[in-house]
């Protein structure tokens, strides 16, 4: 009997810990997204003078950014994020046309910071999915499966938009 009680307590605490982990992982995605929004104006400021003839590339990024920052449903959010990534990818594609820009350290720093932030966003999503997978498996396996649902633990959904977000998407979704 004592063993059963201890077992139940350990299982329950395991569920609580995993649920908190998934919530923390979800918040981390928002932290990284916000970081990218904060980063873009600073970095655009740094490279502005090199893109005098290609102003629309910069405005595209600024527009996509302010669009992405507005509250959306998760699905729309994923789309506007994809558009922002696409606009940024465009900037580097344009930069390829200017040999003097390719070796420019400001631009290279800019590229490193932005691509790293994109990596951080997708790694935070990957980590969220990893912890969701852990949590869901725990809920669905014995002995938690007996009482997990009745105590308010329910499976969480995976973040699905990792794929399109990682490629530079230039098509428009409407």
């Amino acid at each position, binding site marked *: 009997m004592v063993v059963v009680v201890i077992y139940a307590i350990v299982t329950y605490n395991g569920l609580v810990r995993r649920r908190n*982990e998934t919530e*923390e*992982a979800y918040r*981390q995605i928002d932290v*990284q997204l916000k970081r990218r929004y904060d980063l873009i104006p600073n970095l655009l400021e740094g490279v502005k003078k090199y893109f005098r003839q290609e102003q629309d590339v910069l405005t595209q990024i600024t527009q996509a950014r302010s669009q992405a920052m507005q509250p959306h449903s998760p699905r729309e959010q994923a789309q506007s994020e994809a558009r922002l990534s696409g606009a940024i990818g465009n900037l580097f594609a344009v930069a390829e046309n200017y040999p003097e820009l390719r070796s420019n350290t400001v631009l290279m*720093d800019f590229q*490193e*910071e932005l691509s*790293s932030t994109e*990596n*951080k966003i997708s*790694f*935070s999503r*990957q*980590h969220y*999915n*990893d*912890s969701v*997978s852990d949590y869901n498996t725990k809920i669905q396996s014995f002995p938690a499966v007996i009482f997990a649902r009745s105590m308010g633990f329910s499976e969480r959904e*995976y973040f699905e938009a990792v794929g399109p977000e990682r490629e530079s998407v230039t098509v428009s979704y409407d």
Partner: protein
Amino acid sequence: MSESPYEGTFRERIAVNRRNSLFLIAAFLAFVAIFGYIIGWAWIGDPVGAVFGLVLAFVVGAISGLVTYFGGDKLVLATSRARGITHHEAPVLFNVVEEMAIAAGLPMPKVYIINDSAPNAFATGRDPEHASVAVTSGLLEKLNRDELQGVIAHEMSHVGNFDIRYAMLVGVLVGTTVLISDFFLRGLWFRGGGRGRGDGGGGYAQLIMLVIAVVLAILAPLFARLLQLSISRQREYLADASAVRLTRNPKGLADALQKISGDREVLEAANRATAHLYIVNPVKSFEKRAKGLFSTHPPIQERIEILRHMETGGIPQTAG
């Protein structure tokens, strides 16, 4: 993610490795206790002495354990002449560490650079909240971003799997065993042949214990070292597997290991005491001389092969 073809394999391997490590640590602890017990009996001549020896062995272990636990990482970093850096000084390295910390869901560790042209890296600390990752300047020069990411993922896996703490604790246990053996053998020397006490009824038992204790004191440090090495070998395989789980890119780490192992330069900042911490054994002549049992790292070619198998989606056959 669940659709990944080798996800199940990772989880299983990590679970098996954790079990093995726990078993080895328990065996190690039991060994230190028995060792103390036998020496105690041999020295004082009765079971009370044996218990005294057991307690003493534990106390010595606990004290050196605590000192190492709270200061060991600083000592290792200082002897490796590692310099702490900020984002501004090495943005790519800093970003890659941050990315891998996020992928692993761990706090950002402190980042250090060792000024040495031989490419290598290690992680240390007592837990993920107090972890440090150090890489050589040679590593930064010679690896591309994907390869660096693989190496850092390997190091963050050591952090996340608590290998950094195990490495410290096992180091303490080895140190304790050596200390006790040394203490006992020197003590014997000073006592010489003049064992007057306990020559009555307990005489034979004490004599037998004394013989066992002498043999153990000579062999124990050797066995302790072997056990330490086998633990660190297993952890290298596990960290490689977990690293791929973070980057989802086995090629990066495989290429990095290939480059590091093909490099001819010798890491001057490393010595025997810190060798087991590095991603690739920095003491190269030593690795060549003593393969197998005495090596801190699994053969690098085997590690690369396992990673190449993952690239093609196959399940590695040879992992232990």
